[in-house]
């Protein structure tokens, strides 16, 4: 049975479908190069109450408009047991604007208070079926996907957000309530796979 399951998971990765709600967090031991200079895995980044994985990068205008909320989310939810990591899967640009040095600088300039790590070979993005930045995945304490998609409904202006999809999802997760909606969509820059 385990063999069949792993073959099926492999096929899902190959055809590049997006992770479905209820799926287990994939590639938890894939080594990522963090801005701290050390390697990190999703298993290291996970929190006791849940884990937030954000596919991100240094230059995408949607990331730049939204990333003030990354910091707010970390400030609000890290003390409540939510682990958070931003993953840069733009492997085709690791030699230029998404280099580790540029990421260190970007994190410093924007007050990142969470790990920000390169995904060698864009393997995590492929396994998640992530296509763009920012692209959000929230897992519960059992590492099952409970929400995916957008941070909120206004990239441009945090003060004009009408529905903070992600914060609502995390609040519901922490309160043990159903998450609604479980999936949302937003515009973003395509991930630059190798």
């Amino acid at each position, binding site marked *: 049975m385990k063999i069949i399951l792993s073959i099926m998971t492999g096929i899902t990765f190959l055809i590049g479908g*997006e992770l479905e709600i209820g799926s287990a967090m994939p590639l938890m031991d894939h080594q990522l190069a963090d801005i701290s200079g050390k390697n990190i895995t999703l298993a290291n980044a996970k929190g006791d109450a849940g884990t937030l994985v954000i596919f991100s990068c240094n230059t995408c205008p949607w990331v730049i408009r939204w990333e003030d909320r990354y910091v707010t989310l970390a400030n609000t939810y890290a003390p409540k047991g939510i682990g958070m990591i931003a993953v840069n899967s733009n492997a085709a640009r690791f030699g230029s604007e998404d280099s580790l040095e540029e990421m260190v600088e970007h994190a410093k300039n924007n007050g990142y208070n969470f790990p920000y790590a390169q995904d060698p070979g864009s393997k995590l993005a492929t396994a998640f079926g992530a296509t*763009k930045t920012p692209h959000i995945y929230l897992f519960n304490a059992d590492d099952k996907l409970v929400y995916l998609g*957008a941070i909120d409904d206004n990239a441009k202006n945090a003060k004009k957000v009408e529905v903070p999809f992600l914060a609502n999802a995390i609040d519901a997760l922490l309160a043990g309530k159903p998450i609604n909606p479980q999936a*949302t969509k937003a515009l973003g*820059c395509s991930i630059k796979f190798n």
Partner: protein
Amino acid sequence: MRLLLFVLGLSFLLLFSACSNVDLIATDSKTIQEHLSNYKGEKAVLLNVWATSCAPCVEEFPMIVSLGNEIKGLEVVFVSADFDDQLGKVKSYLNEQKVTGVSFIKNENDQSFISGIHPEWSGSLPFTIFYGKISGKMLIFWEGKESESKFREAIQRAINE
């Protein structure tokens, strides 16, 4: 001196507007779909959602413009997904690329815009859809930048169907 400046300024404005052959309309996905339905039975349609700040979008943009100029049975419709404070930049880029006729920029929230353009689109840019000339139906779509040969193949199918 003031009069001279005024005349010079006016001439520049007239020259600029004469150079601008694109009609950039800020609208929602529903209006865009209605616009596309006008081409049923007349032309195949290539819809491309792009943004000035999206590198792969601007890499393939000139190729798409040139396909639209070359292939008579094809209508190319560009939809900019730029933020609404980038209107000037979008218009300048369209003029620079010599895009003429009607072009769109979204003025709807992301969620309903994405679903209104195509329910299976994740929101990643660029995004391209081909509609059949005869059926007017959506035939092929993809996310991301693609080769000219893949575009030509899809256009041929859209013209025949």
